[in-house]
C-alpha cells in the first residue's frame, strides 16, 4: 500500500520517459501527456483521501529503515501540494497544445514538463534533506531546459542569468547539507528534528538554519534574493511561465515550511524574526515591482513575489492559524498564478503585445476572457468569497494572534496595491477603447479557454469550498505546528 | 623478505620521485617547447615506471595479490606518452610556436608555410 506514495513522482517520471521514445509524433505526445496527467490527478486525490483517514504515510524506499535509506513522507501538507500540482499541470498541458507550437512539442517539451512535475512532487514528498537537493536539481534542470526551450533571443538572454543564479544556490545547498551533516551526522529530516531537538539551542544550528533560509529563499524569490525571477519568468512561452510561476517558487517556500517547522524549531527567536522582516519587505518590494511596470507579464511576475511574502509571513507567525492561512494561501496561489498566467497568455495572443499601452477593449471581442481575468484578479487580491480569501483571512488572524500588527498592516496595503496592479490591466487592457477590430485579432484563443475556466473554477472552489479543504489544511498545519507526529511517523516513535 | 622488498620499494619510490623532479626541472628550465616535451615524456615516464613498479612489488609482498592493473597502467603510459608528446609537438609546430633561439635548423619549415591558414587561433597563444 505504502508504495502508492511514490506514484506522484513515478507517474510523471514514467510518462516523461515513455514520451522520449516517440518525440516526433505530436498527437501521440499530446494524448499521452494528457492521459498521464489525468492519472496523476487520480492518484493524488486517492492518496489525499487515504492520508486523511489513515494518518501520515511513509515509504521507506528500497526497504531500508528510516534514518538510513531515503524515506518519502506523505503528510497532508505534502500530498495537498502534490495534488494541487497535478491539478495545475493538467490545464497547463492542455493550454500547451494550442500555444506552445509543434516545433517545441517535437523537442521533448512534454517530457521536460513531466520531469518538472516529477521533481516538484519529489521535493514535496521527500523526507531526506539530500534527496530534497536531488529533487531540486531535477526540477531545476527541467526548468533550465524549458526556459530556454525554443532558443529565441529573449529566452536565451534571461535563461543564462536564471541558470547561473540557481547553480550558485545549489552550491550553497550542498554546503548547507554538509554543515548539517557535520553537526548532526544524519540526513533524514525526522532524525534531524530529533537531533536538533536534543542539541537544544546550539548556535551553529541557527547559522545553518539561516543558510538554508538563504538557499530556499533564492529558489522561493524571497527579498533580497528575487532578482533573477522577473526576467526569467516573463520570457518563456506562457505555458512554461505559468508552470514556473505556479510551482517553482512554491517549492522553495515549501522547503522553508518544512525545514523551519520540522528541523529548525528549537531556537526561533533569531530565525523567525529574520523571516518576519524579510516577508514584510518581500511583500513591499513585490507590489512596488507590480506597480512599476506597464507590461502585463511583468506585473504578474512581481505578484509572484508578493505571494511569497504573504505565505512566509504565515511561517514567521508560527501559530496554527497562521499556518492554516499560509497553506490555504500557498495552495490557492499555485492555482491562481497558473490561471492568471494562462489568461495573460491568451490576452497577449489576442492583443499581439504584452504592453498595456498597446491593448484595450478586449471585452468587446473576448468577454469570457475578460471575466475570467476579473475573477482571477479579485481572487489574487484576496477578495471574498473567492479562493484567495480564506488564506488571507487566516494569515491576518494568525498575524494578529502573534502580535505582528505592523506586518498585518503592510500585508493589507500590499493586497490593496496588488489589486491596483491587476485592476489596471483590467481597466486598460480589457476595458477602454478597443484597439483592434474583430478582423485584426491576432489569433484565436478559443482553444485556450477550457484550461483557464477550469483553473478559475478551481480557484473559486477553493473559496466557496474552503470547508471541504479545511480538514486537509488543518491536518497539514498540525504537522507544521507539531512536528512530533511527523517524526514519529518516520522513525516509528521508538528511536 | 618483506623487509628487503620494502626497502626496494622505498628506493624505487625515491627514484621515481627524483625522476619526477627532474622532469619538472626540465620542464621549467629548457628553452623551448620541443625540448621541454622531451624532458616531459622521458623523465616522467621513467618516474612513473619506478613508482608503479614499487607499488606493484609492495602489494605483491604485503597482500599477496598480483594485480594486472599495475601492469596495465604501465603499458598505457608507455603506449600513450609518446603519442601524446608527438601530437603536442606537432600541434605546437603547426601553430607556429617558435623554436628556441639556439636551434640550428627547422626541418619542417616548408610545411609550416603551407599551414599558415590553420593558425587562426593565434589568440590562444599568449599575447
Amino acid at each position, binding site marked *: 500500500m505504502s508504495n502508492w506514495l511514490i506514484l506522484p513522482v513515478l507517474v510523471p517520471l514514467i510518462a516523461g*520517459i515513455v514520451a522520449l521514445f516517440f518525440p516526433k509524433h505530436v498527437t501521440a505526445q499530446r494524448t499521452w501527456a494528457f492521459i498521464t496527467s489525468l492519472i496523476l490527478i487520480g492518484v493524488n486525490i486517492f492518496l489525499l483521501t487515504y492520508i486523511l483517514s489513515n494518518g501520515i504515510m511513509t515509504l521507506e524506499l528500497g526497504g531500508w529503515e528510516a534514518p538510513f535509506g531515503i524515506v518519502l513522507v506523505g503528510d497532508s501538507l505534502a500530498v495537498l501540494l502534490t495534488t494541487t500540482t497535478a491539478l495545475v499541470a493538467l490545464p497547463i498541458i492542455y493550454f500547451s497544445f494550442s500555444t506552445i507550437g509543434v516545433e517545441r512539442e517535437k523537442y521533448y517539451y512534454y517530457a521536460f514538463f513531466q520531469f518538472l512535475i516529477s521533481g516538484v512532487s519529489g521535493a514535496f514528498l521527500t523526507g531526506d534533506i539530500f534527496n530534497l537537493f536531488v529533487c531540486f536539481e531535477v526540477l531545476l534542470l527541467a526548468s533550465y531546459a524549458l526556459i530556454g526551450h525554443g532558443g529565441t533571443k529573449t529566452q536565451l538572454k534571461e535563461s543564462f542569468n536564471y541558470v547561473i543564479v540557481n547553480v550558485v544556490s545549489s552550491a550553497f545547498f550542498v554546503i548547507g547539507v554538509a554543515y548539517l551533516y557535520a553537526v548532526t551526522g544524519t540526513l533524514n529530516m525526522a532524525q534531524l528534528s530529533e537531533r536538533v531537538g536534543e542539541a537544544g539551542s546550539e548556535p551553529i544550528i541557527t547559522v545553518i538554519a539561516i543558510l538554508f533560509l538563504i538557499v530556499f529563499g533564492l529558489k522561493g524569490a524571497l527579498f533580497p534574493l528575487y532578482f533573477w525571477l522577473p526576467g526569467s519568468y516573463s520570457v518563456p512561452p506562457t505555458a512554461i511561465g505559468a508552470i514556473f510561476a505556479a510551482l517553482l517558487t512554491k517549492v522553495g517556500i515549501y522547503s522553508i515550511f518544512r525545514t523551519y517547522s520540522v528541523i529548525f524549531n528549537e531556537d526561533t527567536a533569531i530565525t523567525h524574526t529574520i523571516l518576519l522582516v524579510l516577508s514584510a519587505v518581500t511583500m513591499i518590494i513585490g507590489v512596488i515591482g507590480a506597480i512599476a511596470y506597464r507590461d502585463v507579464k511583468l506585473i504578474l511576475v512581481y505578484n509572484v513575489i508578493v505571494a511569497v511574502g504573504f505565505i512566509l509571513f504565515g511561517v514567521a507567525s508560527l501559530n496554527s492559524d497562521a499556518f492554516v492561512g499560509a497553506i490555504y494561501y500557498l495552495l490557492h496561489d499555485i492555482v491562481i498564478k497558473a490561471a492568471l498566467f494562462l489568461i495573460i497568455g491568451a490576452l497577449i495572443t489576442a492583443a499581439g503585445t504584452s504592453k498595456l499601452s498597446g491593448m484595450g477593449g478586449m471585452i468587446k471581442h473576448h468577454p469570457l476572457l475578460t471575466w475570467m481575468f476579473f475573477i482571477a484578479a479579485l481572487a489574487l487580491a484576496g477578495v471574498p468569497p473567492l479562493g484567495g480569501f480564506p488564506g488571507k483571512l487566516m494569515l491576518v488572524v494568525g498575524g494578529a494572534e502573534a502580535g505582528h500588527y505592523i506586518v498585518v498592516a503592510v500585508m493589507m496595503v500590499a493586497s490593496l496595491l496588488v489589486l491596483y496592479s491587476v485592476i489596471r490591466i483590467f481597466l486598460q487592457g480589457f476595458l477602454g477603447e478597443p484597439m483592434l477590430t474583430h478582423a485584426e485579432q491576432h489569433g484565436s484563443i478559443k482553444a485556450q479557454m477550457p484550461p483557464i475556466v477550469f483553473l478559475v473554477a478551481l480557484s473559486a472552489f477553493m473559496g466557496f469550498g474552503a470547508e471541504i479543504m479545511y480538514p486537509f489544511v488543518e491536518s497539514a498545519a498540525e504537522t507544521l505546528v507539531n512536528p512530533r507526529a511527523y517524526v514519529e511517523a518516520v522513525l516509528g516513535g521508538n528511536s | 623478505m618483506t623487509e628487503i622488498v620494502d626497502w626496494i620499494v622505498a628506493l624505487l619510490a625515491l627514484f621515481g620521485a627524483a625522476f619526477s623532479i627532474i622532469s619538472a626541472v626540465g620542464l621549467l628550465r629548457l628553452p623551448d617547447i620541443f625540448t621541454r616535451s622531451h624532458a616531459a615524456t622521458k623523465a616522467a615516464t621513467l618516474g612513473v615506471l619506478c613508482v608503479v613498479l614499487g607499488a606493484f612489488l609492495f602489494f605483491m609482498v604485503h597482500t599477496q595479490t598480483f594485480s594486472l592493473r599495475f601492469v596495465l597502467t604501465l603499458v598505457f603510459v608507455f603506449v600513450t606518452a609518446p*603519442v601524446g608528446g608527438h601530437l603536442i609537438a606537432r600541434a605546437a609546430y603547426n601553430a607556429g610556436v617558435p623554436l628556441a633561439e639556439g636551434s640550428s635548423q627547422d626541418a619542417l619549415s616548408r610545411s609550416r608555410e603551407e599551414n599558415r591558414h590553420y593558425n587562426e587561433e593565434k589568440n590562444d597563444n599568449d599575447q
Partner: protein
Amino acid sequence: MKYNDIILQTVTKFISFLIFLFAVYIFFNGHQEPGGGFIGGLMTSAVLVLLLLAFDMETVRRALPIDYKLMTAIGLVFAVGTGVGSFFFSVPFLSQTFGYFHFPVLGELELTTTLAFDLGVYLVVIGTAMTIIQTIGEDK
C-alpha cells in the same frame, strides 16, 4: 592540407578496445571494488570520445550507429523498471535483492537486481555524455 593522424589512429584502435574492456570490468565489479555504473559509463564515453578525437563524427557513426538519446531513454527504463517491479512483489519501491547462483562453467556467482539498476545508470551516463558531445560536435 590534411593531417594524417596515422599514429594516433593506430594507437587508438588498440587502446580503445582495452579501455572498453576495462570499463566493462569496472562496471560489473562496481559492487565489490571501486566502480559501477557511473564510472563504467563515463569510461565508455571516454572511449567513444577518444574514437571521435582520433577519427571523426561520420566514421564513428558509421561504425557505431547508435541513437544515444534512445540509449538514455532505455537506460531510464531499466532504472525505473527495477523499481516498478517492486509493485508486483509488494515490497517497497526500489527494493533490490541479490542471491548467489551456481553456474556450470563460471562457478558461484552473485547476481543482484542492482545490476539491472546499475545497467540503467551505465546506459544513461553513456547516452547523456555522447548525446551532448555529438550534438555539440555536429553543430555548425
